């Protein structure tokens, strides 16, 4: 109420607008002095922009902008975009991950050329992700998805002289191009069957449509597009390659924010456009997501358990976590009162995941900065050299595994409890078994860091302040979410319930 009476509706997009303006400002700064490598200024602008965006998102969330209490979502530009609780919740995730990535990149990029371009592309990608969360029509969803994807391809290949980085960028781009084509073909089929792009109109036209086959194929293909963005089976191949080859802060960005963006738009499309109450009986997308969730989490966790390279292990674990988050779409049933709880728990899991996974990848960035190798053995005895960062890494690992005293435990607990409450106990059981398995490979890192003796001499001469700060912020975020998890899950579940109303 507070906000809608004071500010014009178009400012509801402020979290996204701030990110876009920051990107343009970075371009202007780089135009004024193209040869400068003043990374402090560039990283500073990015961090301030991301934090301002976070501030707006947090303010709007607490003031209730676009939420049921103040009259529901604010739709803008002829219903192309809608700002509601879920959109703002995800914008907050993107902004916090972007801020951490920008802080961490300050040290990671030291001495490298094209720094302004790096931060600009990160900001543009974050803008696209924010728009994905707010997209209310299939056309906007596609354009926003491309706005988030295209800078990501360039960022993965940012280390131009590094063969791994370039190869990862090309693979990511090719799989992305294929899945974008699949996605846009799916949109065209849904448009052919319904005659509309706006989600609510699509749902209306689907109710009792005679083109069940065409619409069903379209729904399947659109689900494929989201599977790419969230790194789920069957479009997950790019993830290990891209995360391993990319600069580590970009791996953090892609595996946390980009994945959450895919879920944000998938949640809205499948609850608003292909709502269970409106969809013809022949199109059972819940079954599709149940299969995808089980296969994704199992494949991700088993593949992660066999890795020797820590960054690659984290990449597969990120696929596994996409499987957990998919429960938010898999444990739904038409008209059930539990739908909002399950999806809200999935959103909260993505928030916690945003902190703990970004932190884990930024720790990898720290080890790359020190140049100490990528395998588990290379981490042996690191705890005695850099105890603070290693303590943070331990927090991330146990939190990712879902051990009780950390944020990851609560989000997984609510997710699995929501699935059981909705009557899908077997999804929760598969998730719990997979979590137990994941403890095996996460604890390998912890064991290597603290228990094993160093196999070689470390050459840790520097304490990069930016990377340390970013890792600490991520660890703090993971820990603060312990006492703060109540309000978070409540906010997420309220926002998700509004989608089903």
């Amino acid at each position, binding site marked *: 109420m507070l906000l809608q009476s004071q500010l014009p509706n178009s400012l509801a997009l402020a979290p996204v607008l701030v990110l876009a303006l920051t990107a*343009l400002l970075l*371009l*202007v700064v*780089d*135009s*004024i002095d*193209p040869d400068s490598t003043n990374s402090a200024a560039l990283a500073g602008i990015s961090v301030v922009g991301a934090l301002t965006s976070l501030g707006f998102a947090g303010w709007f969330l607490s003031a209730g902008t676009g939420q049921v209490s103040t009259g529901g979502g604010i739709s803008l530009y002829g219903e192309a975009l809608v700002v509601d609780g879920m959109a703002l919740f995800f914008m907050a995730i993107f902004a916090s991950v972007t801020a951490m990535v920008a802080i961490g990149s300050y040290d990671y990029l030291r001495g490298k050329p094209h720094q302004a371009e790096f931060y600009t592309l990160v900001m543009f990608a974050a803008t696209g992700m924010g728009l994905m969360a707010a997209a209310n029509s299939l056309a906007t969803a596609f354009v926003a998805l491309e706005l988030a994807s295209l800078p990501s391809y360039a960022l993965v290949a940012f280390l131009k002289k590094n063969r791994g980085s370039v190869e990862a960028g090309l693979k990511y781009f090719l799989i992305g191009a294929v899945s974008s084509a699949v996605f846009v073909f799916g949109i065209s089929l849904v448009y052919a069957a319904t005659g509309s792009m706006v989600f609510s109109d699509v749902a209306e036209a689907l109710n009792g449509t005679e083109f069940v086959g065409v619409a069903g194929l379209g729904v399947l293909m659109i689900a494929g597009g989201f599977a790419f963005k969230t790194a789920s089976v069957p479009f997950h191949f790019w993830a290990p390659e891209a995360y391993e080859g990319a600069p580590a802060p970009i791996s953090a960005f892609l595996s946390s924010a980009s994945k959450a963006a895919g879920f944000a738009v998938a949640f809205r499309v499948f609850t608003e456009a292909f709502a269970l109450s409106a969809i013809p009986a022949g199109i059972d997308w819940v079954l599709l997501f149940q299969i995808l969730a089980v296969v994704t989490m199992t494949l991700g966790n088993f593949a992660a358990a066999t890795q020797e390279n820590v960054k690659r292990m984290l990449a597969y674990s990120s696929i596994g976590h996409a499987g957990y988050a998919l429960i938010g779409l898999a444990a739904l049933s038409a008209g059930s009162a539990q739908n909002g709880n399950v999806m809200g728990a999935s959103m909260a899991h993505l928030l916690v995941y945003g902190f703990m996974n970004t932190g884990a990848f930024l720790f990898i960035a720290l080890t790359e900065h020190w140049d100490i190798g990528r395998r588990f053995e290379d981490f042996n005895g690191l705890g005695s050299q850099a105890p603070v960062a290693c303590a943070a890494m331990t927090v991330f690992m146990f939190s990712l595994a879902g051990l009780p005293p950390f944020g990851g435990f609560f989000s997984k607990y609510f997710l699995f409890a929501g699935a059981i409450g909705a009557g899908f106990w077997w999804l929760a059981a598969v998730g719990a078994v997979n979590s137990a398995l994941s403890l095996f490979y996460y604890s390998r890192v912890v064991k290597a860091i603290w228990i094993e003796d160093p196999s070689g001499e470390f050459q840790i001469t520097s304490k990069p302040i930016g990377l340390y700060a970013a890792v600490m912020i991520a660890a703090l975020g993971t820990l603060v979410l312990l006492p703060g998890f109540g309000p978070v899950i409540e906010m997420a579940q309220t926002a998700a319930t509004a989608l089903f109303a």
Partner: protein
Amino acid sequence: MNPWIAIGALGVVSIGIPLGMMAVSALLRPSVPEQGKSAIYESGEIPTGTARLQFNIQYYMVALLFVIFDIETVLIFPWTVIYRSALEQGASLTEVLLPMLVFIGILVVGLVWAWRNGAVEWVKSPLAESRKTERQT
């Protein structure tokens, strides 16, 4: 009669005519193979080298910039068409003019950035330079 029959007949004829012409000319013409006939035709030039050569990356830069501003024109045209009538029907200047100014402003920022970073500056490739000197000597 089903209208598809006419379309099918058109398809048969359109495939049949070229096939027929090729068959008839194959029957009538003498066969005198010689080297000049099988060589690649390049407007009278003697063909040299393979087709797999590296273009200067700047062709792509110019092409990219061209595409961006081509699309800009495409989006400005419909705006100019509705501009006057939108104003006459009571839309305010901020609704009609401002969005286009913002759009062009964003593109200008991009163009200035590309310009300052040397995207439109023509750098000669060292390979082409060395070839040119070879030819001159």
